[in-house]
């Protein structure tokens, strides 16, 4: 479970650059050009991603054709939405350097900046 990291990331990256859909063989062939990797490793990685809900698949003949559930842009957008709306559906514990600010707070920030002699808000 722990080793989500590298391989799943690489496989998703390949799928996204293949337009979001591919068979295990296609991903394997692209990966195999720059790293020694077993076909079964790619197969089980994609199966993992399928089970985690990142991919869907259709049976075509003997093989599966996998599709990414979200495009890369959608995935990033969903990530940022989750990051910004803490306490709603996600309970991820994270600390923002600067979180989303209300208008009141922006106004107060300008106020603080203007109070300071010799400096102004940019």
């Amino acid at each position, binding site marked *: 479970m722990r080793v989500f990291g590298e391989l799943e990331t690489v496989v998703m990256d390949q799928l996204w650059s293949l337009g979001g859909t591919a068979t295990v063989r296609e991903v394997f062939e692209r990966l195999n050009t720059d790293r020694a990797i077993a076909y079964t490793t790619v197969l089980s990685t994609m199966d993992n991603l399928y089970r985690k809900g990142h991919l869907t698949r259709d049976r075509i003949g003997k093989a599966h054709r996998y599709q990414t559930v979200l495009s890369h842009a959608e995935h990033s957008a969903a990530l940022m939405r989750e990051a910004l709306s803490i306490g709603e559906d996600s309970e991820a514990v994270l600390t923002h350097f600067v979180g989303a600010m209300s208008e009141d707070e922006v106004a107060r*920030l300008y106020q603080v900046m203007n109070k300071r002699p010799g400096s102004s*808000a940019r």
Partner: protein
Amino acid sequence: MSTAVCLLAYSMVVLVIGPPLLSQVTASGAIPRLGITVWVTSMASVLGAWLVAAVLFAVDLHRAWGHIDMLLAGCFAALRTLALGGYGGYLQAGLAVLTALTLVALGVLGARVLAALRRGRIHTRRHAEAAQLAARGAPRGPGGSLVVDAPHRSVYCLAGRPRTIVITRPALSALDEGQLAAVLAHEQAHLSGRHHQLLALTGALAKVLPHLELFTQGSVEIARLVEMCADDVAARRHSGDTVVGALLALALPAQTAPGSPAPALGAAGLGVADRVERLLDPPNRTQAWLYQSLVLYGLLVAPLALAAMIITQVPLCVTAALG
């Protein structure tokens, strides 16, 4: 028995006067670390008082089983006549139910907090994985961070293994080199200060006890103070002005960036103005130290005095009534 009642009374007092008092003495953020200690101590003292009270109830009940008149000899001397009048059995049963309910309630509370912590860990790990996917295995950014394409300027970090710092590309280009270093120092301070564990715990307590301000307001205040702690670390290593510059670079233009409406507030947005203000014009530390220390001693001395009374067997109700 009477000790347990006194402990519960103590917890009530902290629950009622704690939130406004603590908010006030920790407001300036002069010594954020001490402020965090004050909040955490007050939360722990309430939970501790409940736990000890429940244990004392159980012990007393066990010891006095069958001698209900003795059980009631303390605070409830007045009830003794009632007990002797033949209602002892009912009272004893009532107390047994009360004790059982208290213990069950504490058990449920503990289990819920653990469940919330576990959900937090799972969601955090899932988010970290999603962030790795979003970064597409691109080479790590400065400080081992993950650089993600997104419209917002945003920097945040998650604890756990691996520790993750996420920077969006617009944020990366909004910061100059010094500011970026300060931001990374700030995030590293969160990670090495174990701030996430603290926030996970106070967040879980706030979720499980949503009607008790000490925990809900406390978790928000602690989140604010934790940011100030990390600001101080960053400001010591780089300069206060650099941290302010970074805060402004990320806070102000984000509001006007097209196509990215500012999402209405999570707890995360709290206190940016306060943080800038205290970095530009550091508040009085001596005063903050004095007030916060007084509150801290008050919180610690009261239960210790109770404990001393238990040990020395001072008739508690009399003392409590006089005090």
